[in-house]
């Protein structure tokens, strides 16, 4: 077993993405040391904004890195979207680095949404990495890949919102969103390729690699009553819908469920004949 499989690589990358996405969410006023953007005396976060007022001269415009000894800070209440004036900030009104409408700041809500989706994706990838059942479930892999698309879209959206609101005043937590978007794009493509690999592996398990195991089963003393045709798997399914094949698939680890009991050829024919009368079988598409 390789130490760094694709699943583990995706897990590591997603962990990094989550860490990156946490920073903007906990930015000021939640945690004082992290600032999403800084413009003149104003500092901005996802859930509010603050203003640094100098103690001596309140009208002085500070540098980008004001020393905490010389200022006192007023922050708004933690809520989604900025308002021009807030009860916690006295004598100061909101000033944005860009000419954006203040209502656009409500779009900052996508930051926590993006974080939640990424965490969901991370959990799903963890399940794929550490549980064999999920690893082999094509449906679960497909869902994970689709959610990765959603996570990418949200992450990109977050970055665009930050860019629109703060322009060049954006600080490192904002630029981490750009990095997150790029990493998520990589994860997304890796997940889709993983899904392809699993799909091919399943196909190969059905199509080619089972020849040996079918032969073993047919040689097995308890399987003497089973008539196996090895030309194609479809023949097996249609005519002797596969007890033996089933056994092999379980052995290969597909998500089939419990082992199928042994049946005679005649019984299998009866099953397969009912199978194709089923309304769901009118078209061959299955996820």
């Amino acid at each position, binding site marked *: 077993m390789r130490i760094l499989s694709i699943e583990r690589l995706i897990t590591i990358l997603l962990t990094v993405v989550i860490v990156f996405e946490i920073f903007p969410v906990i930015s000021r006023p939640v945690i004082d040391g992290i600032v999403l953007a800084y413009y003149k005396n104003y500092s901005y976060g996802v859930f509010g904004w603050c203003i640094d007022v100098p103690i001596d001269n309140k009208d002085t415009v500070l540098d980008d890195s004001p020393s905490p000894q010389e200022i006192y800070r007023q922050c708004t209440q933690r809520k989604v979207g900025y308002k021009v004036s807030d009860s916690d900030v006295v004598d100061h009104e909101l000033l944005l680095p860009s000419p954006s409408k203040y209502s*656009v700041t409500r*779009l900052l809500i996508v930051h926590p949404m993006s974080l939640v989706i990424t965490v969901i994706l991370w959990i799903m990838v963890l399940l794929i990495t550490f549980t064999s059942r999920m690893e082999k479930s094509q449906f679960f892999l497909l869902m994970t890949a689709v959610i990765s698309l959603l996570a990418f879209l949200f992450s*990109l959206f977050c970055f665009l919102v930050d860019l629109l609101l703060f322009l060049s005043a954006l600080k490192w937590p904002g630029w981490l969103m750009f990095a997150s978007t790029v990493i998520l794009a990589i994860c997304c493509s890796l997940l889709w390729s993983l899904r392809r690999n699993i799909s091919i592996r399943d196909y190969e398990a059905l199509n080619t690699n089972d020849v040996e195991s079918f032969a073993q089963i047919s040689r097995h003393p308890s399987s003497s009553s089973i008539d196996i045709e090895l030309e194609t798997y479809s023949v097996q399914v*249609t005519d002797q819908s596969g007890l033996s094949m089933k*056994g*092999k698939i*379980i052995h290969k680890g597909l998500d*089939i*469920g419990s082992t199928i*009991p042994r049946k005679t050829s005649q019984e299998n024919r009866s099953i397969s004949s009912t199978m194709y009368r089923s309304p769901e079988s009118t078209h061959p598409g299955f996820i």
Partner: protein
Amino acid sequence: MTYNNIWRLSPTDPYVYKSCNWLDLGPGLLVNDNLDQKARYIASIKFKSYCDGGSPVYMASRLTGLSKYRYLDSVYLDWKKYITANNSIGGSFQYSIYSVVISFTANLVITIFLTVLVFINIRDKPYVKSSRLLKFASLIASLNLIIFVTRSLQKLATEHKTHGTVSTHYAMDLFTDDIAFIVLDFISTCIFQLCQVSIVIRLFERIQEKRIVFICGVCLTIVDNVLWVIPQLVEASGGGYVKRWEILPPFVYLFRISIATSYACVVISYIIRKRRQSYRSFQMVLLSFLTLITVIASPVFFIIDISDVWISELSEIFSTTCYIGATVIVWEYLDRLSVIERNDRAQSVLGRPIFEDEQHDYNFAKYALKVQKALIRSDSNTGSEAVGDEDLEEGLGNQADSMDNNVIHPEDESINQVRFDNKREFNEVAQEHLSNAIDKVLYFTDQIAIKSFGNYTSNSSSKNSDNSNERKKVVKRRLGLDKPKDVYVYELRDVVFPSDDEEEEEEEEEERKVDKQEQRNEEGGTYDNSATHRK
């Protein structure tokens, strides 16, 4: 000046222009042809320059220093101050009417050029519906821009005649005020986005991925366009400013940029993946480069827009052009690339790759296993013992032990058996309905969407199928089956067929050989027929 903007605050000018307010010039002599005495002494003259929204406006062809009767110095000073304000409300050249007019006309020219390209260059087959949608959308976009440019020029002409001024925002207001423009823009954008979905479907080769792309793409397109058009129509139809929906236009604006960026990522990754074919000839290199530019145009315009280096709402002005470019150019690129790939496959031993989900038997096999699983579960519920499945040999051994107990007899319950006496649980019913719904969605996706939007297989017979009807006609004409009721008199002599393919300039050398072979064969047939006729 003030005008509606998607995400920008209504701009306010930081400067105060004196000439826009009343200036007290003191006593003086007023000279004018319209006055009774031609000239009149006024004790206190007050003057106010013509302004628009508190800002000076350019008086077309009048602010020249050549005239004897020049404007006041304060007017000149204000004008100089105004043109130094380098922002969206300033009067600098990049925000002036000239830039707007250049942008509009450039838009129009590019769109019409691409529309012509679509009609003369893009074949209907094999993506019949998509290509027709693309042509329809291009036509709508061109018509829309022609109407828009005509109207904006009319409006500017009116302003010029009545006030002697030209102002940018009169033209820009048409974006939000003109219902015809909004509706046509909505239709064309929606169809272009659907065409982009079909393009992305073409980029993926596996059926399942095509399905996912189709479902996601169509959902995103519908959500995007519906959210976009509602506030626009409400505002344009005089519904007034709805504060509740204030967040919607910027949200959809960014949403569109996100989708465009995602589309760009997919196309760029495809170009990188197909770099060998993309860099094979100089034409392909140019086309790849052009494709790259067109797909990133929309995000780039967004960056330009927010950094405020050109006229405001630049991405809105170029929105239609970006969509048509990112669709038509990429389509052309994919067409050419598919020709190269077909040639490569024709020369290679392996040919076209086949994917596992193209094998319908595989799906049947999976379905069979699903049915058996259901059978076994129902059987195990009735008291049978489940057999361990960790190890094949062990499992087989266990199976041997429990074989007699687990046999399903034909007369036992089958999966299709109707059980009138058993009341089914809610979970079972819900699961069944859900799976039926999913199957139906997949069925329609396969039947309607994928087969018309993007082929299941990269069929190399597009050109052949394109000409198949024509060929049938040719063969029928040669055999005399095109006019079955007419009477022909045959004579025994060599028959030379005129070249039936003269009109088909694109016919390849190989096909000509096939035609010649057919001619030879049919000549033999004609002789036989004539011989029979003479008998």
